[in-house]
C-alpha cells in the first residue's frame, strides 16, 4: 500500500462521527480542566484515560489528545484573569497576561493567548508530521551532558524576567533552587531538608508553590487594605486584538513556536521551561522590550506559543521512538498499550493507517481548539467583572481545592499558604517571583543531569564537551551572558532610562 492509499483509508477512518466527536469533546474537557487551578492537563488526561478503554483505539487516543491540547490552552485563562496559572505550563503567561487584565484588557489578552496557541499548535503539528523522524533522532542524542548544557543556557532567561534589579532576580532564583532541593537525594536516596517530615520526602510539589507564589500575594495585599481597587470599574470584553497588534506579535509567535517544537521534541523538558524561554527570547528581539512584564501583548503571545508549540512536538519521541517525552505522553502511551499498540518505528510499518488518521485528527484539533477557545473566552471573561471582595475569597477556595487535589494531601495546602506568605514578602521587597519559579523547575534538572553525567564519566568533566550539542549550548550560554552584561553596562551609562528600584 502506498502513502496515498494509506492516506485515503486514514481519511475514511477519521471521517467517522465518533472520532470527530471524541476530539471535540476532548478539547472542551481539556479547556475546562486546564482552567481550574490545580487540575493540570496531566490530571485531565489521566482521568480521561479509563473512559477510553472501551473505545476504539483511534477514538480513545484522539479524546486524550484533545484533552491535552485543550488543557494547555485552558491554563492560560485563570493565569490571565486571576493570576493563578491553571497548569504549570501557563505560569509564564501570568507575567504579562495579568497586568493586561488589570488594565481592563483581559479580553484582548485572552484572545491573543488563543491565537498564539492555535498558530503554535498548527506549526507544532506540522513539525510532527513532516520532521518526526529527523527530530526524533536529534532528541535521542540528548544525554545527561547535553541536557546539562541546555538547562544551563535556559537559566540565563532569569535575566530576562528579573525586572529592574538583576541582583534581586538572582536572589529569587537562589531561593527557588534551594526550595527544589528538598526531598530525597537522587543518587544516594538520603534525606535532604526533610527533618523527619514524611510529607517532605517527595519534595515540594510544583502546583502549590506556583499558586502560593502568584495568586496568594495578591489576595494578601488586597485583604491588608481592602478599600484599594474598589470602585475601579474594569471595562472588559469590548477590547479585541487589532490586526496591527496581531502583526506586531507574529514574530514572537513564530519564535515561540519554533522553541516549543524543539523543546517539545526533547523528552523530559515540558511546557513551562519552553514558555519561559520563548518569552525571554521574544523579549530580547522585541523593540518593546521595556514593556515586557508590565502588560505587553507580545509577552502573552510568545509564552503561549512556547507552551502550545510543545504539545504537538512531544508526540514526536512518542510516535517515532516509543519514548514518552513527559508525563502526559506517558499516559497517552498507556492508552496505546491498553489497545495492544506499541508506538515506535514498528507502528509506522504495521499501523500506518492509524498513524495517518492520528495526524489528520491532530491537525483538526487546532480547529476545535480555536472554536472552543473562542466560546471559553466569551464565558470566562465575565470573571474579571466580579467585584474583588467576592473574587478573591472565591479564588482562595479554588486554590485550596486545587492544591489539595494535585496529590490528595492537605500538606500541600500548608505549603501553598507558606509560599504565599513568602511570595508576599518578595512582592513587598521588590524581589521578582518569576526567577524563583524558573529556578524551581530547572534546578533539579540541572543537578540531576550534572550528577548523572559525572556518574557516566566517573568524575571527568570532559564529558561536558563530548558532542556538538554541548559546544553549541556552551557558546549560546556565553553569548547570552555577554549580552546581559553589555546591556547592564549600557543601562549604567544611560541612567535616565533605568526604571524604578
Amino acid at each position: 500500500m502506498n502513502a496515498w492509499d494509506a492516506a485515503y483509508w486514514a481519511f475514511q477512518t477519521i471521517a467517522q462521527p465518533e472520532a470527530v466527536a471524541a476530539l471535540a469533546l476532548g478539547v472542551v474537557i481539556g479547556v475546562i480542566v486546564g482552567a481550574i487551578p490545580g487540575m493540570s492537563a496531566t490530571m485531565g488526561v489521566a482521568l480521561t484515560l479509563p473512559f477510553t478503554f472501551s473505545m476504539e483505539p483511534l477514538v480513545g487516543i484522539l479524546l486524550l489528545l484533545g484533552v491535552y491540547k485543550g488543557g494547555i490552552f485552558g491554563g492560560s485563562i485563570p493565569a490571565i484573569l486571576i493570576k493563578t496559572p491553571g497548569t504549570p505550563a501557563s505560569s509564564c503567561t501570568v507575567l504579562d497576561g495579568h497586568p493586561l487584565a488589570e488594565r481592563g484588557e483581559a479580553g484582548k489578552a485572552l484572545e491573543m493567548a488563543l491565537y498564539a496557541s492555535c498558530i503554535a499548535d498548527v506549526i507544532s503539528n506540522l513539525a510532527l508530521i513532516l520532521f518526526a523522524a529527523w527530530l526524533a533522532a536529534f532528541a535521542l542524542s540528548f544525554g545527561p551532558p547535553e541536557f546539562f548544557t541546555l538547562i544551563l543556557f535556559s537559566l540565563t532567561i532569569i535575566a530576562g524576567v528579573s525586572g529592574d534589579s538583576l541582583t534581586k532576580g538572582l536572589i529569587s532564583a537562589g531561593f527557588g533552587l534551594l526550595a527544589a532541593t528538598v526531598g530525597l537525594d537522587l543518587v544516594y536516596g538520603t534525606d535532604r531538608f526533610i527533618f523527619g517530615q514524611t510529607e517532605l520526602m517527595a519534595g515540594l510539589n510544583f502546583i502549590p508553590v506556583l499558586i502560593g507564589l502568584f495568586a496568594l500575594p495578591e489576595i494578601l495585599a488586597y485583604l491588608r487594605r481592602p478599600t484599594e481597587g474598589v470602585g475601579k470599574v474594569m471595562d472588559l470584553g469590548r477590547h479585541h486584538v487589532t490586526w496591527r497588534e496581531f502583526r506586531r506579535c507574529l514574530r514572537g509567535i513564530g519564535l515561540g513556536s519554533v522553541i516549543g517544537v524543539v523543546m517539545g521534541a526533547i523528552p523530559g523538558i515540558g511546557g513551562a521551561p519552553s514558555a519561559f524561554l520563548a518569552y525571554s527570547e521574544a523579549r530580547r528581539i522585541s523593540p518593546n522590550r521595556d514593556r515586557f512584564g508590565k502588560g505587553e501583548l507580545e509577552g502573552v503571545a510568545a509564552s503561549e506559543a512556547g507552551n502550545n508549540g510543545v504539545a504537538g512536538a512531544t508526540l514526536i519521541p512518542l510516535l517515532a521512538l516509543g519514548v514518552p517525552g513527559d508525563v502526559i505522553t506517558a499516559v497517552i502511551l498507556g492508552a496505546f498499550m491498553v489497545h495492544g499498540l506499541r508506538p515506535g518505528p514498528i507502528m509506522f510499518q504495521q499501523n500506518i493507517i492509524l498513524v495517518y488518521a492520528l495526524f489528520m485528527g491532530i491537525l483538526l484539533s487546532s480547529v476545535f481548539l480555536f472554536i472552543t477557545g473562542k466560546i471559553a473566552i466569551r464565558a470566562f471573561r465575565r470573571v474579571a467583572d466580579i467585584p474583588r471582595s467576592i473574587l478573591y475569597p472565591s479564588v482562595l477556595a479554588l486554590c485550596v481545592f486545587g492544591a489539595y487535589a494535585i496529590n490528595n494531601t492537605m500538606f500541600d495546602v500548608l505549603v501553598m499558604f507558606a509560599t504565599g506568605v513568602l511570595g508576599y514578602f518578595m512582592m513587598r521587597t521588590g524581589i521578582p517571583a518569576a526567577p524563583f519559579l524558573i529556578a524551581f523547575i530547572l534546578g533539579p534538572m540541572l543537578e540531576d543531569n550534572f550528577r548523572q553525567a559525572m556518574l557516566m564519566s566517573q568524575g571527568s568533566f570532559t564529558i561536558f564537551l563530548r558532542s556538538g550539542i554541548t559546544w553549541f549550548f556552551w557558546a549560546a550560554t556565553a553569548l547570552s551572558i555577554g549580552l546581559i552584561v553589555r546591556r547592564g553596562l549600557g543601562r549604567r551609562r544611560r541612567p535616565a532610562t533605568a526604571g524604578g528600584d
Partner: protein
Amino acid sequence: MTTRRAMLAAAATALLIAAGAGAEAAYPERPITLIVPYGAGGATDIAARNMTAVTPKYIPVPILVVNKTGAGGATGTAFVANAAADGYTMMVARVGSHTVNPAMKANLPYSIDDFRYVGVFEINPVVCATSPNSGIDSMEALIAAVKARPGEITYSSSGVGSMLHLAGVLVLDAFGVENATQMVTHLPFRGGGEAARQVVAGNATFICTNSSALMGHIQSGALKPLMVTTKERLEGVDAPTAAELGKPELEVLVGWSGIAGPKDLVDEAYEAWVGWLGQITKDAEFKERMGALGSIVVSMTPEESVQFIRHQYEVFRALVDKLGMRVE
C-alpha cells in the same frame, strides 16, 4: 452514571445518618479509596484503572483511584500504613514500594509488616537488555565486560530503591560478579521510561526492568534482550530464561502488583476483598487488558501471596546486606 450518582448520594446520606446515630452497616457502605503510590499513567496506575473498569461487576460501591506520588512510592505507601483500618483506604502494593524499598531504605517511614495483604493479582516478567551498539549480545558478554572494565559499565534505573536499581546488581551477583555495586555504576533517572531511553541512546549500558517497559524497543530492534526471568521463554523476546543460563534463583526477580490495606485491616473488609480479588483475577476482560500490557494475571491465595512477597523481600534484603546497599 446516574446509578453511580444515585448510589453516591445514597451513600452520602447514609453516612450523615450513620455519623449521627453511630449505627453500623455492612462493609462496604461508601466508596473505597484505592491509593496508587505512583504517578498517573504509570504501569501501577494503569493496572489500578484497569481493575476499576471491571470492579462494578463485583464491588457494589465505586472505587476511587487516587495517585499519591513521591519518594519512590514511599509517600503513598506510608499514607496507607497510617490510614484508618476500616477498609475504606486500600492500596495497590507493588514490588518497588513493598519489597525493594523496605529492603533498601532505613529512612523509610514504614516496613513490610505494616500491611495486611489481600493478594497479588499480576506478575510481570523482568527482562535485561542492552543497546545493540554496545557490542554486548549475551549475559556472558555483559559479565565479561563488567569484569574487564570495573566501574565503567553503567545500568539505568528509575531511582534509588526502585526494582531496577536492585535488579541490576542482583543479576550480576548471581552471575558471580563479586562486589557488584563497585563493579558497575548505577545511573538513576526519574522514571522507568527515561531509564529505558538512556539505554537506547547509549548513555547507559544495560537495564533490567519489566518486559512491558522494554517491549516496544525490543520489537523495533533498539534494544537487544539478554535474559528473561520467567520460567518459560517470553513471546516476542528472543532471549534465554534465567534457568536456561543456570540461574533459576533469579526467577524471584519479577515485578508484581497486589492489594493491601493497613496492618489492622478489619476482617470484614479483608474477607470481602479476598472474595472480590478472586473474582477480578478470573475476569476475562481484566485478563485481556492486563495481557495487552505484558503482565500476567495470577490468582494467588492470601497465604501464597504473603509467602511470595516475604520470600522476595528476604532475597532482596540478603543481597542488600551482603553488598552494603542500605540507605541510611
